[in-house]
């Protein structure tokens, strides 16, 4: 069950809402149990077997959390944290990357090991990062007490379970425990519904319509023309942004119905004037996680942090980020290209004192991001290069567009362009509506 599914929007969500604010009015504890139950039903509707995996990770990490908090011995605490992080990474690796690892072992050593063909449990990537942040928070004494109910709700809260944003324990529990948040808030409902509508339109009207010709471009058997190459690449750039940010908008709006504020995850990323700026605007909560829990600890592990060492760390972080997106070398290449973009940006800031035109910087950043996304979406290198070849083939200029593009898709594409560069984003709209 996904947010744009009519079953969710017209049945599940209204039912949970009515139970939460009407049937269980002023029964704060029961309201929390209802949210946990609703979250598990939401997850189980996709695959009931995998809900046991989420339950397992919740139970195991709850125990780790309690152990870390209650340990007075620093060494023991350290061991618990290390084992817990190791467990979570292995858990994710087993379900998400085992076939990828086997394929690479087979290739490297010329073996023929059987693939496990495990289906990947939805949400596990987000849950893993959120859990690691929680464990570190326990270790750093930002969390002094936990109970299973609070922890289960923190991990499973259905608006942000599947695709984030990645949230911190303190940020969420503070809101869940606030008495006034258990009462109906008409302003939040009003804002929440507007944000859900915006997210739904971004996903259904724009992203899904653009995907019609993007899919044709990425699955083209014949050579693409110049315009087809650009249409495919730019189309996917807008498609992924409107798809993901639309889904996050819906998550934000749904959470707001229950008086829970989720952190902003996108802030007009295509208005970024450089790659550093881009990652301050794109998938912000992932970027924060990578910075806090990988970039900073790795950087601090160097006794003398020089510019080149910090650039090395940047590349490592983005290789991890790339692989986190999925078990494919194409995602690793995507991550490496972003790492490279950041290194160039940092180097430029450090060694050149030029002040480039803002519009030019924006143009350059957008096109570089668009270029990296070709590798994100393409099945293999061959497919990625065929699109790049078409986009750069000006000697044998072929302007024909053989795609079967419905008018609505072209309108969606034009709207996507205008919205991204000329309109304010959802985060801004929420801030304005709150005033």
């Amino acid at each position, binding site marked *: 069950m996904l947010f744009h599914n009519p079953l969710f929007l017209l049945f599940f969500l209204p039912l949970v809402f009515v139970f939460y604010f009407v049937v269980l009015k002023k029964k704060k504890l029961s309201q929390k149990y209802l949210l946990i139950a609703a979250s598990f039903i939401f997850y189980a509707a996709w695959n009931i077997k995998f809900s046991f995996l989420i339950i397992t990770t919740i139970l195991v990490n709850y125990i780790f959390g309690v152990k870390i908090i209650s340990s007075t011995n620093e060494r023991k605490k350290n061991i618990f944290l290390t084992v817990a992080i190791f467990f979570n990474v292995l858990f994710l690796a087993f379900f998400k990357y085992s076939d990828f690892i086997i394929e690479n072992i087979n290739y490297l050593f010329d073996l023929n090991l059987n693939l496990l063909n495990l289906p990947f449990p939805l949400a596990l990537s987000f849950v893993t990062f959120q859990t690691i942040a929680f464990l*570190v928070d326990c270790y*750093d*004494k930002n969390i002094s007490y936990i109970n299973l109910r609070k922890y289960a709700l923190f991990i499973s809260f259905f608006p942000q379970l599947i695709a984030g944003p990645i949230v911190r324990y303190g940020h969420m529990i503070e809101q869940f425990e606030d008495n006034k948040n258990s009462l109906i808030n008409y302003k939040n409902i009003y804002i929440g519904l507007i944000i859900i509508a915006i997210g739904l339109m971004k996903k259904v009207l724009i992203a899904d319509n653009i995907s019609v010709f993007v899919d044709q471009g990425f699955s083209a058997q014949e050579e693409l023309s110049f315009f087809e190459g650009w249409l495919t690449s730019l189309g996917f750039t807008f498609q992924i942004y409107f798809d993901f940010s639309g889904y996050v908008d819906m998550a934000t709006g749904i959470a707001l119905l229950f008086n829970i504020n989720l952190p902003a995850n996108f802030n007009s990323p295509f208005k970024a004037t450089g790659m550093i700026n881009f990652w301050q605007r794109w998938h912000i909560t992932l970027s*924060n996680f990578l910075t806090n829990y990988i970039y900073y600890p790795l950087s601090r592990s160097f006794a003398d942090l020089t510019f080149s060492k910090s650039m090395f760390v940047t590349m490592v972080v983005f290789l991890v980020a790339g692989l986190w997106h999925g078990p494919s070398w194409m995602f690793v290449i995507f991550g490496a290209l972003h790492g490279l973009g950041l290194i160039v940006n*940092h180097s430029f800031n450090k060694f050149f004192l030029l002040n480039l035109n803002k519009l030019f910087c924006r143009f350059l950043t957008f096109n570089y991001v668009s270029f990296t996304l070709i590798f994100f979406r393409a099945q293999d290198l061959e497919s990625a290069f065929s699109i790049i070849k078409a986009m750069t083939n000006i000697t044998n200029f072929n302007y024909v567009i053989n795609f079967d593009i419905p008018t609505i898709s072209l309108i969606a594409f034009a709207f996507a362009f205008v919205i991204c560069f000329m309109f304010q984003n959802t985060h801004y709209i929420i801030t304005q509506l709150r005033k």
Partner: protein
Amino acid sequence: MANNKDIKKIIVSISRIINTPINKINKNSKAEDFKKWDSLAHIKIILEIERITKKRIPSSKVADLNSIKAISNYFLK
């Protein structure tokens, strides 16, 4: 624990790291106000703060110390 003198030293260090005149940094300054206060500068600022205050900052707090106010509150609380 840091004191007001340490906070002044921290501001001087921030000014040097982000290559910005000290008179442009005040108690309301935030990382987002300065183009040069990026993730690389931030980690250098954190290492400098740890050196000045002789206190290790937990990983989970590093990102939160992104303004003079946040740094002051963290050390003067």
